[in-house]
């Protein structure tokens, strides 16, 4: 295989604006309910009563996920037709629309919700890291949309080298041992797995 591609997210600066999700949706013409890039808010903590005031012990952050183009993609493993496949050149996982029969096994097996079933198309849709854009020498839509410049893409080994502090697991995501995802995060201060305040 060539170089495995992946995403890097600087979660620390993600403000949950969802521009990436909407840029992705527009670029890929997805209907309501089908989102190839998604953001989830994680929040909690509480307030301590101190005299007549409340003091916050509150955390909140956003987790952005599209597809992690995993080393061991469950969606590919469980696809009965071979529509879902991992590109041997760059490791990108995508779904061949001519082979997809809309059985949805992939949507049930991915712990990240990456494959999304489109009622209107009768087939699964998912992030292919904007293969068409990459072929034209452009960046994926989400990457160039981010107002905080918090999303990057490239060979995952290079991303890891560039961001030595980045991790594959942030609090709120599935155990990376399941699929070996190729998205790395600079964790939000409150999202450090096991280290959340």
């Amino acid at each position, binding site marked *: 295989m060539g170089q495995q591609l992946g995403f890097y997210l600087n979660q*620390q*600066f*993600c*403000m*949950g*604006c*969802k*521009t990436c*999700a*909407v*840029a992705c*949706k*527009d*670029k890929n*013409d*997805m*209907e*309501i*309910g089908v*989102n190839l890039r998604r953001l989830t808010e994680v*929040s*909690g*903590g*509480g*307030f301590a009563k*101190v*005299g*007549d*005031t*409340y*003091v*916050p012990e*509150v955390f*909140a*952050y*956003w987790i952005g996920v599209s597809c992690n183009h995993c080393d061991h993609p469950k969606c590919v493993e469980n696809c009965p037709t071979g529509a879902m496949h991992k590109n041997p050149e760059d490791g990108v996982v995508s779904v061949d629309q001519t082979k997809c029969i809309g059985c949805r096994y992939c949507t049930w097996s991915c712990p990240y919700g990456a494959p999304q079933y*489109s*009622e*209107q*198309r009768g087939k699964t849709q998912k992030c292919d890291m904007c293969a068409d854009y990459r072929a034209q020498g452009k960046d994926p*839509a989400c990457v*160039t*949309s*981010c*107002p*905080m*410049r918090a999303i990057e893409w490239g060979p995952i080994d290079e991303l890891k080298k560039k961001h030595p502090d980045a991790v594959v697991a942030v609090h709120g995501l599935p155990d990376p041992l399941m699929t070996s995802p190729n998205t790395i995060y600079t964790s*939000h201060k409150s999202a450090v797995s096991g280290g959340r305040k």
Partner: protein
Amino acid sequence: MSEKWSISRRSLLKWSGALAGAAAVGGLGAGGVGPFAPTEANADSEPKVIPTGCSNNCGGRCVIRAHVKEGVITRIESDPDPDSAEQMALRGCLRGRSYRSIVYHPDRLKYPMKRVGKRGEGKFERISWDEATTMIANELKRINEKHGALSIYPHYASGISGPAAGTGFIKRLLGLYAGDYLNYYGTYSSGQTRYATPYTYGTSNSGNHRADWVNSKLIILDGFNPAETVFGTNTMYYLRKAKEAGAKIIVIDPRYTDTALALADEWIPIRPGTDSALIDAMAYTMIKENLHDQAFLDKYCLGFDEEHMPAGTPAGNSYKTYVMGQADGQPKTPEWAQKITGIPANRIKALAREYAMVKPGALIQGFGPQRHANGEQSVRSATLLACMTGNVGRSGGHASGAGYPPSTVTFGGIPVKAGTGKVQISCFIWTDAIVRGAEMTAEKDLIVGAAKLPSNIKLIFNLAGNTLVNQHSDINKTAQILADESLCEFIVTSDIFMSPSAKFSDLVLPGTTTYERDNILTPWGHGEYAIYSNKVIEPMYECREEYDWLSDVAEKLGLKKEFTEGKSLEDWMKFCCEGAAKAHPEFPGFEAFKKAGVFRRKVAAPEIAFAKQIADPEKNKFATPSGKIELFSKALFDRKNPQFVPAVPKYVPAFDGPSDPLVEKYPLQMTGWHYKRRSHSTHDNNPVMTEAGRQEMWINPIDADARGIADGDQVKIFNDRGATLIPAKVTTRIMPGVIAVPQGAWYAPGKDGVDTHGAINILTTQRGSYMSNSNPQHTNLVEVVKA
């Protein structure tokens, strides 16, 4: 959803002649795909990529690259340019990115309509453009003759910004025809700060350029949430840069906002409308501990202490006298402020020490703290604290106040007849001017340009605005006033949807979206650039831009030549560019600007507000009456209303605030906020934005538990003015005692008059703020029950 869409799409294609070709080639299959439909005009053809922009009135102005195939927009991209050391790409947010589902929304207004039922009932009948423009010309003539030019009110409207908006052209036409019109001052967004900031500094341009923020060691964001308001394209990115350069960021806000979670080292929740109490206690601490910059105050400021007062002012009126309690017996101690703000006294002291000692520091106030009954005081207090710490006029500091940049890109505007538009009301009091305009005076109602108004408002032009009903306060009261057809006699609305405001109009005209007209976009706040927003597609259906049909009205009034000067809308844009060429030698000219889509002004270094005045105060005076920074204002002193309009900044408890006795009945404070999914009320009906963010009320678990409310429950918020239904988001991201409802959701009354869609203004008041009669929509008391 999909079925609904397929029906809508088919209808849409049927309605639109412009799209017939696309449908034939498209091969969209059953239902197509969409909210963005129609999209696949011809899968094989290369799209044209047209530089344009987003002209809704959020805080940013962003580059859009629209892909067009055979007259149909197929994709929205934003600024393709990479960031460089000199300039940042002007990337659009989710709102701009979702715009296809506005342009191709099945509910677009498609032809002119006149009201046939009672006003506000929502019954309309299709008419021709000829009938519509004749009706406008006739009503204009009738009302002008009967009530005079000052009874005609071009309403506050910001659905389309820039010189191509109808709001400028209607003023031009009224000047030519009626000789004048009733104008307004201020804005719903920034009324208090624009009014109050000049009392301190002589101008509202009190902010450093954002590129200077990297020089701050401490940044305090008070009620500032650019993650959602945007407040200048790239403002969040500038703050990221500042944080990476080492600034500590503290966010003061009742909510743990998206700005706070992405940037804040600390969050200090504060009760809405009590910022001045916090600042008073910080000032008290600084004085007690001798941490303030006395030399700065002595040199540049008027009114801090008794030694620096204007001649002839009675003793005991300085800020220091007030804050130390010598005037009223109440020292403004952190313990005093704790009870008001909900912030522990120790935290207030620590914050005072930090801001006084970590220099330079930028206290940046958003527009949230000023959108209150007492909002002018929050503004004046923050400017005072910036002076007490000597952070004015210096790199890395910030003078606070409105914070508009010292200079920005300048274009020409649409010319109006000289001398017109001088008589003005605060933009917030127009409903009052419908009822009793002829009683209004300069003294009592802050009328500008005349001692009194000659008439009530009788004719309203509401061009691309939803402030007629939805965005104005107290919807029930507004609806009652508008429903009385004997008061305001004629209302014209131009819009792209049957908004709650359009429903209360006599004539509803189908307008164009940002992509169906040429325009020039300049940021109202930060940003050293302008965008040429090219027309991308032809107007759909029978939709027309306002200039187009106003030209027809002008013709019927015998003024077409004078009104148009033979110019197309694009010609007017060209005309506006002459102003830019004069102001900016590097301006490349109209054609080049239009082609490139962006013009960036050359700025050698980030400008620092008041740098000159601070460097050489003798040569460079502040534009105040005294030439100094006026912490004490003689002009305010002369208003002789010290309790509510004090001459020095003070904590003035707000009506409907946390110390109003009304809290016995309505114990929760309610504040609004600008939600990422809307630009004011624009995009409320956009399905992509509804998916991105549901309309919801934030409530702390402590308050929710006390009322048996679980996350996701439908609840009713109510007070004496009205009630609304909305789902609850039970979250620790808001402080106890406060709920928050994002502004801009469209009023949708049920049979019982209860709004069903979380429209905040069913609950807000038409009472203007104390000092400037501005919009206090964040000052509210309510109760919440499970619906």
